[in-house]
């Protein structure tokens, strides 16, 4: 690669430098934060009973791991999230398609969709427990309530904003409505749908945790709730940290899928 000009090499060096700089500070911030936290805890500047400390979080993590049910709690939360994520996606896509197909239905349900989407679903929590029962179903139901409406609205608005000129083109070729749908509407909204996956996975996780806080015997939300009830702040913070990692991993997987799909289409 010695064929590059000096200027280009300099450009590459600058790019690499910037990348290292960004990574360095990303790590530095978390290290700095943890160090301050740990030192404050050890010196007794803060009350570890209320605010825990990094070393205690690690201890709690290890003991949870040894008790052997940590993986189970994580799995329960992930499982519930994936279930509601998939169901929300399927319902969202189907309903959005129906609304696209029939504008009159869309007009009729529009105000209901808006109300259902803006209503804080946690307010329905007590009702859901009474109707669905204090079990996993009501957790999934809660997550569905949160993620389905936003999925419907996003996919539908994507469908609707399809370039009308493309539709006209297909009409000049005498395309039927179903042909317009699967030749144009769906492929041209691939990116909308992938974007929707990203929002949907976060929403489903929010819903699942909310449901687990209300009613559960297992899961990360349960650990957080249990920890707060017995005033074990170590457990609460450890669970929150694990939850953060879990949500990041799920989001990361979705964005990998997104990259792959966009790569295929261009």
């Amino acid at each position, binding site marked *: 690669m010695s064929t590059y000009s000096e200027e280009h090499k300099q450009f590459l060096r600058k790019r690499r430098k910037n990348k290292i700089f960004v990574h360095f500070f990303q790590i530095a911030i978390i290290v700095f934060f943890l160090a301050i936290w740990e030192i404050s805890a050890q010196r007794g500047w803060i009350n570890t009973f209320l605010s825990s400390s990094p070393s205690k979080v690690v201890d709690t993590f290890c003991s949870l791991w040894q008790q052997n049910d940590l993986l189970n709690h994580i799995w329960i939360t992930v499982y519930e999230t994936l279930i509601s994520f998939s169901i929300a996606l399927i319902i969202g896509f189907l309903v959005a398609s129906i609304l696209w197909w029939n504008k009159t239905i869309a007009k009729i349900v529009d105000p209901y969709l808006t109300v259902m989407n803006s209503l804080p679903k946690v307010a329905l929590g007590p009702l859901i427990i009474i109707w669905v029962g204090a079990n996993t179903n009501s957790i999934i139901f809660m997550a569905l309530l949160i993620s389905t409406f936003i999925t419907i609205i996003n996919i539908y608005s994507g469908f609707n904003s399809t370039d009308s000129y493309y539709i006209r083109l*297909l009409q000049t070729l005498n395309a039927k409505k179903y042909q317009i749908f699967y030749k144009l509407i769906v492929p041209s909204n691939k990116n909308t749908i992938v974007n929707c996956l990203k929002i949907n996975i976060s929403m489903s996780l929010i819903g699942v945790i909310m449901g687990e806080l209300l009613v559960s015997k297992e899961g990360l939300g349960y650990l957080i709730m249990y920890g707060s009830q017995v005033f074990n702040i170590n457990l609460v913070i450890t669970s929150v940290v694990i939850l953060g990692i879990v949500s990041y991993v799920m989001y990361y997987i979705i964005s990998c899928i997104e990259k792959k799909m966009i790569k295929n289409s261009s």
Partner: protein
Amino acid sequence: MKKILTIDKVKKIYHDTSGEIVAIDNISLDIYDKELVAIVGPSGCGKTSLLSILSNLEEKSAGKITFHKENIRMGYMLQKDALFPWRTILDNCLIGLEISHTLNEKTKQRVIDLLNTYGLGEFIYKYPNSLSGGMRQRVALIRTLAIDPDILLLDEPFSALDSMTRLSLSDDVYQIIKNEGKTAILVTHDLSEAISMSDRVVVLSKRPAAVKKVYDIHLTDKSTPIQNRKCKEFNYYYDQIWRDLDVHL
């Protein structure tokens, strides 16, 4: 010459909540086989409405359209190319066949041959974003030809292009239409384009549109559109049609 299409007293009214607009008042016109008819008129006079009615995209309010041939197929070429960015050039051209369920090895090969003949052979597996505006519009024409239409409806097909591309593309399109032996109706607001490309120029009046005048274009030494602009009658037609259009701002 054989008639292929008769437009008889066609009328078109558009309705919306604020009232109704008569877009086309009364258009009667015969189109002959293999001729290229240009329709010119002031902007917004209902030229596109006429093409939409001919291709069955819109209902007419009154009048009659008669085709003098069984199962006539219309090919509609739009102002913008509207190529799907997620389809290759070949797949874009095949979409009409897919929609009419007539895609098979034979029709596919015909489209590939068309692409090869008209200089797009090396791009058939490329995506539209790697092509220039003129090339894309040429692909759009091949897409229109792929369904083997009897009549081509060209709705200002060059107006989205820069003037140089426009000139050379109008030459190409003219050649393609003549080689393939197609009947074509070209809607344009460019008088030079209309005179240099067509056999007949139909001048429409302001909205509501009606046929104001029809010119049979006779040019000495008629050849390609670019060459035709040099013919001695060219300026005469230009002047006449300009007067007929009666453009006042």
